[in-house]
């Protein structure tokens, strides 16, 4: 069939994609490197000023009573009944590229990223999300990147927690730092002090805040390292007789991870380190579509949302799009019928 035949029948999707494939294939091969370089240099870099965020719609999920008690109603549905994730994990990718595109040093990118992370976390807590996990540093970062940059990021996180301590405590946010055996010794003293300060402030504020929000910051964390340390801990307990080999099941393995109830490598300002719910929504920015060794076990059934903007540019509209994807998703967990959104009763 000749070209005329194709045109006469109308271009079908497959033919269009064939043409696109033929056009794009040169880009894919090693010979396409000059083509890619030309396109990269002519791509326009959008310059959006950092937006300030008006409040996200309140879902009546946090009520600050006059006596300082915080009633966190864990209703996993918004005001209009749409499902809201309990645990949102964020891989804030693109800080370095954001800074390079503006001619700023990478440290400026990380600073902008930290501010954006805090804003996003607080907005998610306001929307009713219980736990927000941020992938600040991975085990790969701490082995590959220059130690200066890693040190800068650690100090940045410590600085942020110190300066925003009153905001976090007022909103009943507990902070958990999760790490790995190789990176836990690298956590600076300022970070230990910031966590201790947060715990003390929360205790002073009073009230049973055991069920508040949790901001989980992963510094030097790796999902594989986490599973390895959990296996090691379980093997050690079985060897000493504290556990029987028959009792090793998925729940126990999950409990020994950093997000479980036994935090072996990390810090926490929670009064009792509790097991965090599995990840419901995972957001990764800058267009990279990988998990990159973050919360592997916990993300088994998570909705994956890959956003194009670089992390400092991730705005309220992008966050709403991610939450909409979660609400639209038909989460069957292997069954045939869709499951209904969980609702639990109010806790005092």
């Amino acid at each position: 069939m000749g070209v005329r035949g194709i045109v006469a029948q109308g271009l079908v999707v497959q033919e269009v994609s064939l043409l696109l494939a033929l056009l794009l294939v040169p880009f894919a091969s090693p010979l396409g490197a000059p083509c890619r370089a030309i396109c990269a240099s002519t791509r326009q870099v959008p310059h959006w000023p950092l937006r300030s965020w008006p409040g996200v719609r309140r879902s009546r999920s946090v009520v600050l009573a006059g006596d300082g008690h915080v009633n966190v109603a864990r209703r996993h549905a918004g005001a209009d009944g749409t499902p809201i994730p309990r645990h949102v994990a964020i891989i804030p990718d693109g800080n370095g590229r954001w800074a390079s595109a503006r001619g700023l040093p990478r440290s400026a990118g990380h600073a902008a990223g930290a501010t954006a992370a805090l804003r996003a976390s607080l907005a998610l807590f306001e929307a009713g999300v219980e736990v927000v996990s941020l992938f600040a540093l991975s085990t790969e970062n701490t082995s590959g990147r220059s130690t200066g940059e890693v040190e800068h990021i650690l100090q940045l996180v410590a600085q942020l927690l110190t300066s925003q301590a009153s905001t976090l405590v007022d909103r009943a946010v507990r902070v958990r730092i999760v790490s790995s055996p190789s990176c836990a010794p690298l956590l600076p003293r300022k970070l230990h002090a910031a966590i201790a300060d947060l715990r003390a402030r929360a205790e002073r504020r009073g009230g049973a805040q055991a069920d508040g929000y949790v901001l989980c910051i992963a510094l030097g964390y790796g999902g594989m390292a986490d599973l390895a340390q959990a296996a090691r801990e379980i093997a050690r307990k079985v060897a000493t007789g504290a556990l029987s080999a028959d009792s090793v099941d998925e729940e126990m393995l999950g409990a020994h991870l950093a997000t479980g109830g036994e935090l072996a490598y990390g810090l926490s300002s929670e009064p009792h380190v509790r097991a965090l719910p599995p990840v419901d929504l995972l957001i990764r920015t800058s267009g990279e579509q990988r998990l990159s060794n973050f919360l592997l076990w916990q993300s088994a059934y998570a909705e994956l949302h890959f956003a194009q903007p670089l992390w400092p540019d991730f705005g309220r509209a992008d966050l709403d799009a991610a939450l909409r994807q979660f609400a639209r998703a038909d989460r069957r967990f292997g069954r045939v019928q869709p499951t209904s959104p969980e609702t639990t009763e109010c806790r005092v």
Partner: protein
Amino acid sequence: MAADRRLPWWLRWTCAIFRAGEVPRHVAFIMDGNRRYARQLGVELQAGHTAGFDKLEQVLEWCLELGVEAVTVFAFSIDNFRRPAAEVDALMSLARDKFAHFQAHESLIQRYGMRLQIVGDLHLVPPAVLAEMERAVALTRTHTGPLLNVCFAYTAQHELLHATRAIVAATRAGELDVDEIDEHAISRAMPSNVAPDGQQVPAVDLLVRTSGERRLSNFLLWQAAGARLAFLDVLWPALSAWSFFAVLIQFQLSQPAVASAAWRDRECVRSSGCCS
């Protein structure tokens, strides 16, 4: 005849162009959308699953033409046992037929000399299906071609638990010291990471899920930690070569950014001798 079975010329030509760039060594597929496909066509669900299996054979041929070393497919999850009993029984009988088909001389597995491995909690599989599985795997034991991992009655969390239990047993038996338990130890203890001949399977480079769902559903969490995830809105039985090639183009374009990261140098995800 061999000539009848060859792929069309334009497909082989496009695969040759892709081979000039970087081809994923290990591709994983979540074959989602068979039931919806059957509903759209107005046929019974069994026909949808049969069409899905035919598509699997086609996709395997594309991967073999590209030079992929290992393919892992998610055939049946432990969670799927919660489906209606009639559907589970139908799926089991389909599986029995297809594993019997794998033993036939003219099947893809035999023609390309692929090595077959079944990964999952095989205690949950009915004996009839298990017998066909074992026969099919035994026939491929001497093969040296690419590896096909069929994940049946599988969840990634169960596989990790299996690895942990194996490590705990090895520690109790004195074969392994507690302080030696690290990521390499877990990698070696995971059944889908180890080929039938004992070599390490390369880490998953590309994971494709059809039918528009954007989640892993408890599939290959460990092995896909650094994999490029591709989500296609098309249903599995309707997957065309062009959609797959579009995914490959995105894979190749995303590679340079990763090559500089520490990921490539991780020993526990780099194969320690498989096919190299």
